[in-house]
């Protein structure tokens, strides 16, 4: 009797875009042999919003709110990168205090990004508790960000030539307290994950990439460092004040999901180290300018007085501004903004109080005026939470950027995803995709 011959065929399986682990915006077409992945095709673009086209439509500062929405888990780093690019094009240097503030905010953002990434991928492997703990820690940090910028996600904090406002009173104390809380959470999560059999078994040896492949694909950030390649923009081409700070860029060995987890966990500690150093070195101290001369005047009263021409009383005063604008008035203005009329708006006391301030305000705000960098091009890279975040800006000498190109750090990783997945099992898609830390906003722009 002849044995029955069974036909075997590969199975084509669509994962996403409407799949919770694909964040709703990625479609992976998997070629499966049983549960083994023989090939994969990745489709992106579901969140394309025309970022680069929109940037060409308005002035230079108009692009800043758009940059918030690139990597929406660490928006401050995008702000910093974009502003640094324009500043380099114009030859501006931000005062030291402004630079330190940018570093502090970038590193806090890096922690929130890693917390989200590790927390979400742990949740996708069943560790829901870790997710909740990490989101709790992220919440502490976001409260901190909210106190500085006035918003949690749509922060728009940086300006060309500086930042929107100085740090609020008591920032240093609160930050130190928050960092202590975050450290506690990280210890808890480390206990829950690092020696957890289920977690380690699913992370170890999956999503492996060699160093050579990672470099060829243009992968950067913790993902590249997990393969042992020592590349960190903050170290290799330091910007802001990173060259004055002591920190390590943790390296992995195997380039697998577990090493990426370790790199991210260690990077959070290093970021906290950077924040603490910055707080200690912060020029001008941790609290706002002390002993401000003159009396406080409410912002609305100042506007009314200026409208009626009673500017004499504005000269010696400083307005009490809304909490979200705190720290942007005259005593703080020079500490955080470059002394550059071509790019930086004058403090409101000057706009309302003297004709020079008013003119300089309108020269920057009026249609057809605004910030005008010289003709040319610049590529500025910063270390985003996912890797090298680059802004390539071309200026034609007018008040609108001619071209703004973002080099999104997670696009090369997504391009390498078929390579990462092939040979692994179906169940490994979730941890591998999680460790890529795909952020739709910057991937699809």
């Amino acid at each position, binding site marked *: 009797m002849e044995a029955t011959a069974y036909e075997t065929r590969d199975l084509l399986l669509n994962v996403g875009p409407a799949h919770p682990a694909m964040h709703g915006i990625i479609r992976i077409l998997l070629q499966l042999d049983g549960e083994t992945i023989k090939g994969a095709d990745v489709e992106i673009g579901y969140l394309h919003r025309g970022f680069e086209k929109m940037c060409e439509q308005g002035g230079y500062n108009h692009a800043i709110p758009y940059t918030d929405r690139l990597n929406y888990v660490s928006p401050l780093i995008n702000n910093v990168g974009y502003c640094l690019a324009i500043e380099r094009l114009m*030859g501006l240097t931000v005062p030291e205090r402004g630079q330190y503030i940018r570093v502090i905010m970038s590193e806090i953002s890096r922690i929130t990004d890693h917390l989200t990434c590790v927390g979400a991928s742990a949740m996708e492997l069943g560790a829901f508790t870790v997710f909740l703990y990490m989101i709790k820690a992220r919440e502490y940090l976001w409260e901190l960000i909210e106190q500085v910028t006035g918003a949690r996600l749509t922060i728009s904090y940086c300006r060309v030539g500086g930042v929107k406002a100085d740090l609020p009173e008591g920032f240093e104390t609160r930050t130190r307290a928050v960092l202590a809380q975050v450290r506690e959470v990280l210890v808890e999560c480390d206990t829950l994950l690092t020696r957890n059999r289920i977690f380690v078994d699913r992370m170890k040896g999956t999503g492996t990439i060699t160093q050579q492949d990672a470099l*060829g694909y*243009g992968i950067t950030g913790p993902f590249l460092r997990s393969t042992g390649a020592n590349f960190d923009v903050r170290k290799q081409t330091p910007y802001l004040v990173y060259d004055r700070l002591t920190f390590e860029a943790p390296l992995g060995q195997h380039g697998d999901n577990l090493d990426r987890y370790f790199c991210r966990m260690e990077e959070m500690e290093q970021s906290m180290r950077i924040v603490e150093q910055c707080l200690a070195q912060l020029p001008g101290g941790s609290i706002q300018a002390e002993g401000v001369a003159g009396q406080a005047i409410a912002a609305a009263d100042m506007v009314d007085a200026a409208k009626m021409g009673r500017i004499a009383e504005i000269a010696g005063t400083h307005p009490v501004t809304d909490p979200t604008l705190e720290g942007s008035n005259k005593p703080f203005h020079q500490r955080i903004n470059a002394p550059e009329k071509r790019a930086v708006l004058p403090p409101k006391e000057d706009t309302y109080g003297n004709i020079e301030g008013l003119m300089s305000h309108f020269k920057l705000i009026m249609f057809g005026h605004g910030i005008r960098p010289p003709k040319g091009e*610049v590529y500025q*890279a910063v270390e985003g939470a996912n890797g090298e975040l*680059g802004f390539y800006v071309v200026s034609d000498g007018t008040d609108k950027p001619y071209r703004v190109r973002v*080099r999104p750090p997670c696009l090369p990783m997504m*391009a390498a995803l078929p390579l990462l997945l092939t040979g692994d099992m179906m169940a490994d898609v979730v941890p591998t995709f999680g460790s890529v830390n795909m952020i739709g906003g910057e991937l699809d722009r």
Partner: protein
Amino acid sequence: MSEEQAPPPVPLSEQLRARFPEAVIATHQQAGDDTAVVRRESLRAVAQHLRDEPELAFNVLMDLTAVDGLKLGAASRFEVVYHFYSLEQNRRLRLKVPVEEQDPTVDSLADLWPSANWFEREVWDMFGIRFRGHPSLKRLLMYEEFSGHPLRKDYPVNRRQPLIGPGN
């Protein structure tokens, strides 16, 4: 970025010009970014040299994009812009390749740096520049039915396209 570094004796772009006098049309070092403008025909030869020469070792193609020079008054309509990085030398270099409107084609670098694969697809998608020798040059961010190339300067920002999909 914070401090001005002493410039190297001869910028890399100048060395490249000495090595490929025919290929390199122009060089500049604006804002500290070393740039060489390379003839389209010589792109692959120059790129291969950058990657394989042990003293250069540009093993990372960081970014690849294009600029539409329509309103810039440039001699050629497009410029494809490459940003290379060498991990060993910790050095960056920008290559620019002018491309004419009549024949918007450039050689693909996807076999030299795998990162070029998706970047070139994006440039095709956004600018309509073709890459000769690319393994599968299809749109990356826009959908297949989309007509036109949105980052071209003559593509109006407010143009609507018909909705696609079932029910439309």
